[in-house]
Structures are given as C-alpha cells and as structure tokens.
C-alpha cells in the first residue's frame, strides 16, 4: 500500500488504564485504514473499540505504540488532524437546553468551518431544528450527532456505533449517505454491532477481542471464510457418515423435513460430484451468514490465534 494512501496508521497500540488493578484495554494492535475506504471496527462489548477510537482522537493517551492520521502524529499534530476529522462519539448526553440548530452551530464554530453539508444532511435526516434537544427521542438525538459529525465535510469520519438507536429507515438513510460520501473520497472508520450494516457498507473490517486484533479482512474474504450451505433432498437413502466424508464438508445436519444441510468450506465441485451419485430431489446453495464468522471471532473460545494486520495487496 502506498503511504500516501493511508488515512489511519495504528502501530502497536497499547492502552492500559492505571489503577490498583490496571486494565489492559488494548494490547498491541496494528492496522491501517486506506483513504477513501469504509473500515469497520468490530468486537464485543469491552473489546477495546472505543478506547482505540479515543486514542486516535487524542482524548486518551496511549500507553505504547503510535497512531497517525494522514501521516500526522495523532498527539503532536492533533489540531491539524482534528480540522479534517468528523467524530461521532458512542456515549454522549446532548445539552438539552439547546435547540438542534444552536447545537450544530456551536460545533461548526468549534470546527472553524461552515456546515456545508448540512442542507444535504437535513434532507436525509429530518429533525426539528428549532426544538430543544431535551425533547428529542433517542433516534433524533443520534441523527443530530450524525449531522454534527458530517456537516463540515470532513476528510475522515470516525464513528462510534453510528446507527445506535436509529430505526430501519434511519439506518438505511445513513448507510446510503455513507456510501455516497465514500464515493466522494471520504474515509470512514466506524465501530458497529450491526453486522448487516457492516456487511453492506464496509470495504474492510477489523475484529478486536479482549484488546487484541483477531482479524483484519475484506468483506469478500470474510464471505469466503463463511463458506456456503448446501440444502439437499435425496430420493434414495443416504447416511450422514457418507455426507461427512465428502471433501470440504464441515458440518452436516438432518432437518425435520428430511432434507440435509451441508456446511461447506472451499470449492463446491467435489460436493456436487459426490451428490450426483444419488438421486437428488432438491438442491439449493446459499451463502452462509456472515454473522457466524463474526460470532466466531467474538467468542472467547475461538480457535484462531490473534493476528496482526493483514492488508491485501
């Protein structure tokens, strides 16, 4: 990857919260986010996602390692970076006495930039601008936060669970907006728990678990990893052992209606050839849900070791 094309470079980041019992929130993680990509940052609660994001924005000070944004040091050049970044925090209580309009005006003034994307955002996210924020629902407050993150047209948007509290329509509007902005060249770094959202918007994802990176992969690679599910019904009797013996079959399940579900990893060709030895009444091939791959990464007992950054060439 060309260095000029890197928006975020996290190298051996370590963050320990001091105290009587120090908490090692992030343990030596490294990854890069390319300019113009939407990068998902996933992991279970307490995995270290928000800590990493807050280190990136110099709100927290790393215990070790380095962070750079657009080639600038995240701490030393924080002001230069922040003038190019839009941030949506995951946990914020908005000042209820302000109207949405006043709130957005305050934060665009702090950015020192005109809110040039605000008209577009107001079309997507309809909120009553002259109402006080304390009267807003959770979804409306989240839309207000989304608007403040994007209104000054940042080069990089750092979003901590951006669609939390949004209804499906709001989520769809957000995803569409995100894809459009990425098409314009905006880089997006977002943490999320909504796997379908990640699947539909992100180019690459990093999975963090217990402060360590479990994977950094493209969505396509994850899809390949998730494999396929073959649903088959036979007219003649077939044993489970026979199906399990087929190359590439990872798991076999007999359904109540008599059909078999074969979970595959790798090529489907040997499976088709093996099944053809019987009389097949019905055959369907589906992609396995990506959710399973994520859940495998999430679970503490996952067999795969934590790995460092693997960036596709």
């Amino acid at each position, binding site marked *: 990857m060309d260095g000029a094309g890197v928006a975020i470079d996290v190298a051996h980041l370590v963050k320990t919260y001091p105290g009587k019992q120090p908490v090692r929130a992030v343990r030596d993680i490294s990854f890069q986010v390319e300019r113009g990509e939407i990068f998902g940052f996933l992991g279970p609660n307490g995995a270290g996602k928000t800590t990493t994001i807050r280190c990136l924005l110099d709100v*927290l000070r790393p215990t070790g390692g380095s962070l750079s944004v657009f080639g600038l040091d995240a701490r030393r050049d924080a002001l230069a970076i*922040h003038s190019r970044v839009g941030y949506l925090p995951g946990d914020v*209580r908005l000042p209820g006495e302000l109207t949405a309009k006043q709130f957005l005006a305050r934060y665009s003034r702090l950015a020192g930039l005109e809110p040039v994307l605000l008209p577009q955002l107001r079309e997507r996210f309809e909120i009553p601008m002259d109402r006080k924020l304390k009267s807003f629902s959770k979804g409306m407050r989240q839309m207000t936060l989304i608007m403040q993150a994007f209104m000054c047209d940042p080069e990089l948007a750092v979003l901590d669970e951006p669609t939390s509290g949004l209804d499906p329509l709001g989520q769809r509007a957000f995803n569409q907006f995100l894809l459009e902005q990425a098409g314009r060249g905006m880089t997006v770094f977002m943490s999320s728990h909504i796997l379908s959202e990640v699947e539909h918007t992100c180019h690459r994802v990093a999975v963090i678990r217990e402060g360590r990176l479990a994977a950094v992969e493209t969505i396509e690679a994850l899809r390949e990893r998730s494999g396929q599910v073959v649903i088959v019904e036979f007219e003649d009797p077939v044993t489970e052992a026979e199906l399990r013996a087929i190359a590439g079959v990872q798991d076999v399940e007999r359904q109540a209606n008599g059909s078999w579900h074969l979970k595959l990893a790798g090529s489907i060709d040997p499976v088709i050839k093996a099944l053809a030895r019987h009389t097949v009444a019905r055959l369907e091939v589906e992609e396995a849900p990506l959710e399973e791959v994520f859940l495998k990464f999430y679970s503490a007992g996952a067999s795969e070791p934590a790995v460092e950054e693997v960036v596709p060439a």
Partner: protein
Amino acid sequence: MSAEAAAPALRVARPRARRFTVLAATLYESRTLLGAACGYIVIIGLLVGLLLPAFKTLNLQIYLTGTLGSLLGGGATLGPNTPLFAAYLALELYTSFFMLLFGGVLAYAAGASISRNIEDGTLDLTLARPVGRVRLYLEKWAAMLVGGALILVVSLLTAYAGTLFFPNATLHWTWFLLGNLDVAAMLFAVVGMGMLVSAVTSAGRAGGGAAVMVVVFWYFCQTFGSAGDRLAFLQYLGPYYYAPSSHVITTEQWTDPWKLLVPVAAGLVFGLAGLVYFRRRDITA
C-alpha cells in the same frame, strides 16, 4: 478502492470564525448559578438601603466587634467618617460570608466547568474539533473569571443604585472600590482553585461539590481563626485574611496592600496546576 479516490480537493468546507465558543458555552452552562448569585446580591444590597433608617437606631460598633461580626470577618473598628450605608453593606455583603456564598457559587461553577463536560461526553466532541486542551482550559478559566466579574459588577451597580434610590445612602467610593478589589482577588483565588478541582475530577457534581467544600473549609478557617489567638493561624489558610474587603470599607484603611498578591498568586498557581494536569490526563468519565 484506491488512494486516488480520496482527493482532498473534493472537500468543500469553508472556514468560519471560531470566536470564544467554549467561553460562551461555559457561561451559558453556569447561567442559573450566576443568575441566582447576582439576584441575591441585588436583594441584599437593596434591603440594606431600604432598612437604613431602622439601622440608624442600632449600635453598629457593637455589632461589628461582637461575636457574630467577628465570625463573619467584619470585626473591625468603624472609621470616624464611614457612611452607615457603606458599613452595613460591608457587613452584610463583603465579609468572608461573601466568599462562602458567592465564592461558593463561583467555586461550584468552576469546579463543574470541565468535569461536567467529561461526564456528559461533550468534552470528547469539543476536543475532537481543532480546539486544543490549553485553549479549552483557558477559555473555561476566562469564563469563570467573567462570571466573577459579573458578580462584582452587579454588587457595584447595586450599591450605586442604593445611593441613588435611598435617602442618606452614601458611599466613599475610593474605599468601596478598594474593598471590591479585595473581593476580586478573593474570587480569583476561588476560581483558580475551582479550575484545579475541575481538571482532576470527571463528574460535574463531584467537581463542583469538592470545590465548594474547599471554600467552606476556607470559611471555617477564617471564622475559627478569628475566634481566638490560639487558632489565629487558621486564618492564614484562606484568602479572606489577605483580602479583608469588609475591613477596608468599614475602617477606611488599606493596610498591607501587598497581601492582595497572595490570593492572586494562589489563584494563578491553582489554575496553572489544573492546566498542567488537564493537558496530560486521559479524558475518562
């Protein structure tokens, strides 16, 4: 995706004036407290003017040198030409009780000024903008000094209004302004201390409450310190000893003006210590 896709030239953002947004927002957040303090000052000031005819029948000297007067920090011999209005205003408004009440309000506002924003998460939003920690801290500090100045201006205007509206309500402005200078120094120390407390705490009420407790401690130091010689050393711990505003107004004497530098220096040291800590700390609620 490629690096070419990310041409910054696509950005259409235009600069706008940043002004003193943090300062304005901090004052806005403290408006209820400051408003209440100012309102209370107006009420006290006008009541003193209104009750002046009744006060004339009282022996002010006994009140001043009595236990209550001493405890309030007003215990002093009345000057030969001190106007009655000025003397009662000094006693009711400018004693160490001023530090407790209005200093307390200011201490709470200052103590909560940063910690409140840490607690509600809005500090993250602000710091993610091109607003450095030093600038943010200094603007918040300045906001609290503006709040203190507001309290002083309101008390001065109230006194001025008293001289206009109430018969025989007169002030010797030189001594009255010097007394207010003492109050200003005292409030400067309070604000600096409040900023330090705010910088090291992470919850608004905890920060504000802790700062108020320090002011209460100072007040107790003053009152117990003036109760007897054996405890006199306690007075040195609080700012009122170095800026005895009511004494200046009632005695019409300004001895040891250099003492004023002590609360000013203390306010600076407290405030700068808070800045150093705030620059280095993690923002964690």
